[in-house]
């Protein structure tokens, strides 16, 4: 089974990558503290004070609450060490997250680590917001995996290839399919906790394959910013809901494309089919 460790295979020479890995590490710790069943200090009933004067023994378990605080401290420490290279990120998902056109992200893919962070920050926050707004109690996403996806895409394509990716709608759909597939393969969404069925067009798909559903929605949202300049909701949350409905309505076709022998080609075709019928 694949390790859940958030540390990248090769520690980046760039301080911001290190900061990102540390932050994901802390996020994992905090998620575990919130979700691993076990006694929480504040949940335990107060024991009656013994009549004798013997001092109380300290509790023999590690409080999950204190682990969560530790994780928060760790995030703060990582941020202070990383300094200006790591902008604050914690609450980005709590506000609507505007996504850029796909072409803008493709241009970023061959930039520096700091440039790549613009993509990973947006997709991390948008993914978390989409999942939380659909009714999740908690979610764990590794941002560094999102960042690495675009970095790998940039490293794999030359400048002329990148230029041709934006030349036509078909080429853009192909690039979008590549991005979505790479994100799905990286599995940045590590865990979700739903206590009720999500409020989504394909709720079981979101529960069982959150990476597929969420990153298809986000990639399609970016693609449509290039291909459908009008008619699509402009408010970020409304746009994500719109594309969540669209991807959910085509769930069977998208699933078939992802599981076929040539997923990139099939997914590209399906994305083009959807885009053609949008606006």
């Amino acid at each position, binding site marked *: 089974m694949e390790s859940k460790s958030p540390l990248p295979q090769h520690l980046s020479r760039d301080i911001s990558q290190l900061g990102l890995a540390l932050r994901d590490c802390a996020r994992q710790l905090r998620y575990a503290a919130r979700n691993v069943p076990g006694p929480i200090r504040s949940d335990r009933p107060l024991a009656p004070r013994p009549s004798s004067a013997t001092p109380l023994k300290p509790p023999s378990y590690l409080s999950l609450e204190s682990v969560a605080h530790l994780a928060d401290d760790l995030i703060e420490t990582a941020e202070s060490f990383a300094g200006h290279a790591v902008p604050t990120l914690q609450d980005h998902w709590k506000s609507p997250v505007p996504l850029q056109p796909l072409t803008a992200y493709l241009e970023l893919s061959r930039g520096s680590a700091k440039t790549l962070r613009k993509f990973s920050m947006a997709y991390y926050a948008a993914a978390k917001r989409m999942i939380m707004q659909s009714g999740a109690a908690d979610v764990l996403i590794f941002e560094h995996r999102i960042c690495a996806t675009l970095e790998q895409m940039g490293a794999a394509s030359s400048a002329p290839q990148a230029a041709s990716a934006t030349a036509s709608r078909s080429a853009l759909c192909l690039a979008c399919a590549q991005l979505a597939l790479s994100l799905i393969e990286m599995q940045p969404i590590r865990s979700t906790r739903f206590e009720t069925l999500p409020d989504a067009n394909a709720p079981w798909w979101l529960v069982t394959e959150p990476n597929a559903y969420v990153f298809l929605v986000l990639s399609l949202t970016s693609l449509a910013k290039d291909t*459908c300049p009008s*008619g699509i909701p402009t408010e970020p949350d409304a746009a994500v809901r*719109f594309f969540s*409905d*669209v991807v*959910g*309505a085509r769930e069977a076709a998208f699933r078939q494309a992802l599981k076929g022998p040539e997923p990139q080609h099939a997914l590209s075709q399906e994305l083009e089919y959807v885009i053609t*019928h949008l*606006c």
Partner: protein
Amino acid sequence: MGQPICSLEVQQLPTWKRVRKLTLCRQLLQQCCDEYGERHALQIEIDDRQFTTAFFAWIEVVERNADYRHQNALDYFQFVFGVLLRDLLREKAIHVKKDASTQLRPSPGNIADWWPTGYVLTYFCIGTLKATVHEQCAVEIHPSDALSQPAVWQSFRENMIEEPGLAIAFFDKFMGLEPNWREPTEISNRPAVAGRSSKN
């Protein structure tokens, strides 16, 4: 029954092209809902999620049967707009605004108030069909008397609950065509196809 709703105005982009785009099709339906609201003082809302599901289900049928258009364009459009009515009704793409439903005083004689969602969606499909046939085939078509008969609407509403596919047959009846009551969803069994085959 009063003035019908959803009489589409001529636009730069042909109706057939608009109705096959999710956002533009929604705009057309919103116009019908607004028109109904103004006439009947009752708010009808589109459920975006259900509308999207219905739309993509419909588009699949449109594309799967595209060849039939070359054989009989009029009947092709008649069929696909019947399917649109079925999918929009089946998915409950529109609904009466929650706080407005208490205003309803339904009586079967007044179809528009008795079944607002069925009324709006049926007139939406009639409006888009008429405009499409006018633009694509240069033919004017008109609904039959069945459209003003409450008994037909009652039967439509009751049967539709058990078998949504019958919406296609009722849509044919409203437009004065002979419906295929047994297999309304099968394009190959449409009376127009059967009639054409028997002549050959």
